[in-house]
Each structure stands twice: as structure tokens, then as C-alpha cells.
């Protein structure tokens, strides 16, 4: 079939290997950023939820600032501006740092509003039984909030995976970056390459959303 011909031409072992290497970088950067920003965002979300004087307000300012900046700006900033003040990072580190900064702010909001969605009566029931504040958070508020947070968290993880591609601007050798190199060599390959790249993103992201659905069903 004529339709398949361009794909067969592009799908050489070398090209596939090159694309998969890029995809591996994408996945690695996304996974590390997800773990880091979940920890940092979780911490920020909890601290803001707990309304600790000064700390909570300060974090609110930081989070709101970051959330209102384009991710691209943060990526440029970590890679091009930070070296000016002596913080020099490899491309991959800079990408992870930038994504982590941005996603921590986004995730902290999801986590904070998840915690806020738990009825105050739940806390009062816990506290009046003699549990302290931390125990009440840990055994009563968080488990309930976490279940509600699964869908927005996963959709944020999916956008993080997609946003990793923005790091092509600092030449992160990710999937999109390697794809560009390939079609730059032979312009007629551009459509099949884009389709293959799209499939790779789609499969992983769709799998993530299926897992999220599973988790949602399980708790329902």
C-alpha cells in the first residue's frame, strides 16, 4: 500500500532507536519532575492548608506568582538566567528544575483544594476524640482528600508529560527534539514522524488516564 510506504521508509531501526532515546529522555524528565513536584507541591499544599501564620501567606505569594508565569519563561530562566548568578546546570537538570518549580505550584493548589474539600465536621470528630492535629490530617483528612485528588492529579501529570516538550527551546534531547532532527534531514518524512511521535505521547498519556479511571472506579 502506498499509504504505508513513507512509514516503512522512516521506520528504520536507527531512526526508531533515535526516537525512543528521545522518548526515554521525555519520560525520565517527566517522571523525576512528577516525583519531586508531588513531594514539594504536597508539602506546600499542606502548609498552606494548615494556615501557619506568615509561612502560609509567603507560600501563597510564591505559588500565585509561579502559576501566573508561562512555563516557557521559567525554562528560559533556569537555563539562561541562573548561570548569571553562578547556578549552572546541565540541560536535563535545568529542564527538571524548571518543570518541578512550575508543577510544584500547580500540584500544591490541587492538594490544597483537595484538603479544603473535606468537611470541617470530619476534623472536629477526629479532634474531639483526642487525636491531635497531625493525626487528624494523617488518618482522616488526607486519605479522603487523596481519593478526590486522583483525577486532577493525573491530568496534571499528563500535562507535565506533554509540557516536557517545551524544553526543546533549551535543546533538551527529548522526543520532540529528536523528531525535529530526523525530519530536518529529510523533509518528506515530516508527516510520518509526527504521527509516530503523536502515537508515543498518546499511548503513555492514555494509559495514565485509564489508570486514573480505574482508581476512580475503585473508590466509588
Amino acid at each position, binding site marked *: 500500500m502506498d499509504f504505508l510506504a513513507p512509514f516503512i521508509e522512516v521506520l528504520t531501526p536507527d531512526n526508531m532507536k533515535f526516537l525512543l532515546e528521545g522518548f526515554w529522555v521525555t519520560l525520565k524528565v517527566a517522571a523525576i519532575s512528577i516525583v519531586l513536584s508531588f513531594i514539594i507541591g504536597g508539602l506546600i499544599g499542606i502548609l498552606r492548608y494548615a494556615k501557619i501564620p506568615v509561612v502560609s501567606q509567603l507560600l501563597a505569594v510564591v505559588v500565585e506568582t509561579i502559576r501566573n508565569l508561562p512555563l516557557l519563561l521559567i525554562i528560559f530562566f533556569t537555563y539562561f538566567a541562573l548561570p548569571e548568578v553562578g547556578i549552572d546546570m546541565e540541560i536535563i537538570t535545568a529542564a527538571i528544575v524548571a518543570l518541578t518549580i512550575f508543577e510544584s505550584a500547580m500540584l500544591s493548589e490541587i492538594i490544597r483544594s483537595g484538603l479544603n474539600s473535606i468537611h470541617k465536621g470530619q476534623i472536629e*470528630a*477526629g479532634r474531639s476524640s*483526642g487525636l491531635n492535629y497531625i493525626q487528624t490530617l494523617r488518618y482522616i483528612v488526607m486519605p479522603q482528600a487523596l481519593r478526590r485528588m486522583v483525577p486532577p492529579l493525573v491530568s496534571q501529570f499528563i500535562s507535565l508529560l506533554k509540557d516536557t516538550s517545551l524544553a526543546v527551546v533549551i535543546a533538551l534531547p527529548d522526543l520532540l527534539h529528536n523528531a525535529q532532527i530526523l525530519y530536518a534531514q529529510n523533509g518528506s518524512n515530516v508527516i510520518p514522524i509526527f504521527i509516530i511521535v503523536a502515537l508515543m505521547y498518546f499511548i503513555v498519556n492514555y494509559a495514565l488516564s485509564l489508570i486514573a479511571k480505574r482508581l476512580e472506579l475503585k473508590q466509588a
Partner: protein
Amino acid sequence: MISFDKVNKFYGDFQVLKDINLTINKGEVVVVIGPSGSGKSTLLRCINHLEKITDGTLNVNGLSVADKKTDINKLRRNIGMVFQHFYLYPHKTVLENIMLAPRKVLGQSEKEAKELAMYYLDKVGISDKADAFPSQLSGGQQQRVAIARGLVMKPEIMLFDEPTSALDPEMIGEVLDVMKALAKEGMTMVVVTHEMGFAKEVADRIVFMDEGQILEEAVPAEFYENPREERARMFLSRILNH
């Protein structure tokens, strides 16, 4: 056991509790009634420090509730609280709901906590629901679980804030029966409720509140037959005629 001495409480400029003086002795059952917004819940919630008093003295079990040195968590172990809307933990089974505080606050072993939880579930008549989740229970059953959750800490005081107001009429009886049994065993109880039958049967005293003040304190027979205060009379005629 509980004593309010010239207690005031404000929310901003609004005074919810006005010069409250009230003593509740060990083993007494006190029913608090009054119109909506009169401060009944606030009064109750001050006892276990869910609300802070603004001034005056409030002693519970010999400890000053407002005193910074008082270990509030320790004080609360000794006070069970039952809410209008139950507030069972929806992510935990009935048994886990009851075992949480004994495990985490008292440090009981799994086995010990489970035995005790089963004992109290049996006492409130729903041991067959031990492994159910709260959402699978009727309102009356949920409230009985909430009572067992309070009792399992072996408190000296139980507080009830309109425990039957959110229930369908046919379930009110089963909850009141549990509370009556508790009262007859000598539990110190403070109960916000408009259930007159309950009050007449087990209350030692009725406290009538209006606009943040205690207007009248009397034994039930006297209060319901012949309230001294005009506002109490008006309030009673309203709840009786509706």
C-alpha cells in the same frame, strides 16, 4: 465535673454566650433547649474546646479549658462528642471508625481495640455491621456507630448536639434508646435536643437558652408543666404545636 463561671463568648462583635453560669455534676444528665441561634451548640462545643471562650472560667474534670497549660487532647479523651450529622469517617469501616482513637490516642493494640470496639458495637445493637462502610448504613445506624465511637474511649462525659435532628422519624427511637440506657448507667451527659420524651424520662435538669443566655434551669416536670420564663413558655408552645 463541668462548671461555667461567668463565661462569655464573642464572634467578633457578636456575643454568642452571655454570662453563663452552669454547674453539671458527675452522673447528671442535662438537656439544653432553646430557639435556633440561641447558643446551644456553642455552649456544648466550649466544653471540649472546639470553641474558645472569650472570658470567664470553664472547668472540666478539674482542668481549666482555656488555660494554655491544659493538655487539650488529654482532656478530650475524657469527653465523647456526638454530632447532628454523625461525621463518621467515610473511608473507614464501622470497626475502623471506632478503633481509630483507641489505637492512635490510647495506643491500644489491634486486638485490644477490636475487642473493645465489638463490645460497644454490641451495646449499641449493630455488631453485625462491623465491616460495613458508613455509607451502607441508615442514619439511625450511623448515629449509633458515632455513639459507640465516643464510648469506646471510656469517657466520663458525653456531649450530644441534636443527635436525632437529622434522622427520619422512624429512626429517632433507636438512637434515643441507646442514650437512655447510657443515662441510666450513670454517664454524665449534656444533650442538646428538643425530644421531650427523652428529657422527661432521663434528664435531671433542663437548661433553657435564649439569645446567648441561660434563662431558666429546672427539673423536667416543672419546666415542661410550668415554665417560669415567658420566653420559655412561648418556645414550648411553638415546639409543641408544630
